[in-house]
């Protein structure tokens, strides 16, 4: 499988570290979709996708990100992006997604940008 997903939690924010590629080729995007759906079904409303080690994405991967973002917004949730680079950044730019989905280069700043109900509210 060309995609590895590590899920971390920070307060009420779930961080997904994505490594490899999110394309339709070998079911990687399907796998990402499944992970995101499970998290949203469990009640997670704040998602941060860490794209630092994601080196390729196609329209299937974009569809998953956009679909999850739209779904979360309907539930008053948020999806944000962390460290898109290289080809992935180019593709996100093509779709002008960075104009509508907040993106950060720094994890601390990204976490701080979510509504302060979790760790930052407590500290």
């Amino acid at each position, binding site marked *: *499988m060309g995609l590895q997903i590590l899920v971390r939690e920070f307060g009420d924010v779930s961080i997904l570290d994505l490594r490899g590629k999110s394309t339709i080729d070998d079911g990687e995007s399907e796998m990402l979709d499944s992970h995101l759906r499970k998290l949203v079904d469990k009640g997670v409303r704040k998602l941060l996708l860490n794209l630092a080690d994601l080196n390729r994405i*196609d*329209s299937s991967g974009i*569809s998953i990100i956009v679909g999850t973002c739209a779904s979360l917004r309907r539930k008053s949730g948020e999806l944000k992006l962390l460290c898109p680079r290289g080809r992935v950044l180019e593709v996100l730019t*093509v779709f002008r*997604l960075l*104009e509508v989905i907040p993106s950060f280069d720094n994890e601390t700043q990204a976490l701080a940008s979510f509504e302060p109900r979790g760790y930052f509210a407590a500290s």
Partner: protein
Amino acid sequence: MVVSSSSAVKQRVALVVPSGGAVDDLLTSILDSESWVIQRAVDNEHALALAATEPFDLIITGRKTLGQDDVELLRKIRSTRAHVRLIILTDKFTPGDVIAAMREGAFSYFSAPFDVSELTAMVHAAMDAPCWDDGIEVLSATPEWVRLAARCDMATAYRLVQFLHGVKDPSIPETDREAVITAFKEILLNAMEHGGHFDPRQYVEVSFVRMRRAVVCRVKDPGEGFSLEELRHAALSSPPGDPFSHLAVRESQGLRPGGFGLLLAKNLVDELIYSERGNDVLLVKYVGPNASQVA
């Protein structure tokens, strides 16, 4: 009627020509994980001799041999084992070798440097794929113009895209090659899904043309076509600044979130031209020193 377990379960056997190092370890790991038996040949001559005596379920060449020698091995084996699955790995190749490999019915072709995760996925595909070897048919081929038919299924699309990755034409910058392949893949999948309904009895017709200052891909699907103006469910129709607006249309039509393929392809090549019916499309990418001025 009683069928004994020994006759019901056939042990599958792969023949591997060593590549050395991490690639051998990777192949061993993949094949072991699926309980395949691995037989090793020291070189292509040995592989040919072994293939003459045993019908291997999969053959993987070593990367140290020339691509054209691997194609010759494939041709000889397929003269007696017509449906053999053979994946070519090679460090030394020409674009022509890739075309020859497709024509001779290779399962796939990896020219160095290649992505290990892609190789892993392709070996798994070869281990699982039923009825694979009529998926890609080379209809005509010169170094400048290749025309082929591709069956409308995901596995065939995946194989065809990997063949394209294998070409690695040194006269085309890598970023341009990647852009063309990504755009082609998006258009090919659209053609197979919307034109061919992923019906394996249907084929799309594909051409690759290498001009002096451009690369052109043509994809013709067997469907009725469409009008770009009618594509309200595609991201191409979303106004600038509101890339989600087409999603509402998709939702109202019961479609999954998506519709980004066309827009991605359009942005990766210099020209995306549809025929009047909409079932025939040209992708044009200008290459060479003055490419940006031409585009």
